[in-house]
């Protein structure tokens, strides 16, 4: 079977999308919380 013409299995594609989207969202959310708290405390991102 030609591996190039073989479509990526749906489960793998979903897992990849979930892994990437979830982890990137998690980074953004965590950074956002740090910035929010830092702005609340210092009036700017970091003093």
């Amino acid at each position: 079977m030609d591996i190039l013409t073989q479509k990526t299995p749906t489960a793998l594609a979903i897992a990849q999308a979930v892994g990437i989207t979830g982890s990137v969202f998690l980074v953004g959310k965590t950074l956002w919380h740090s910035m929010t708290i830092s702005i609340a405390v210092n009036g700017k991102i970091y003093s």
Partner: protein
Amino acid sequence: MQAPAPLAVKQWYTIFTRGGAIARPLAAISALATGYLAYHRTFRHMSLPTLQPPHHSPTIHTSSRHTSNTPTEDRTSTPFRLNALATLLLPSIVPFTILVLGPTNNKLMAKKDELANASLRDKHVEQFAKEGETVKELMDKWASLNLARALLVGVGAVCAVAAGVVGRREVKEIGRFAGWGR
């Protein structure tokens, strides 16, 4: 600090509880996904064809003959390693929160309870607080530690993205090398 201490600590509490409610399941789901990908590349991945340079190989053993669900030697592949690293790093925010952020969280929770009935206009509400244990100082420390937590998941996310990119590139390069898709 612009917000009075009793209000600021309530705001921190809201961010902390809502953030935790989202972060834990999200970290678990992402780690399960990258773990599944790593597992698949080790145990379910179709054996890649035996490659030889095109001028030496009139016949290329395509994967159809070698397809199997038995373990392959794919544990050394970059996508496997990246996915495995992401699987370890993404849920590591839970022990990190308990072990590293825990003491600061506990102090801020105690402050929230202590200042629950304090007046927002009372500027001396923390005049007896110990050095380094005012709401402002604790929240500042929490923000810095939370940044370290962001670094953990950041590396995990980079690994997850890189595994996807490298995995696709590997497949394309193998295909080009073998002269497929012509």
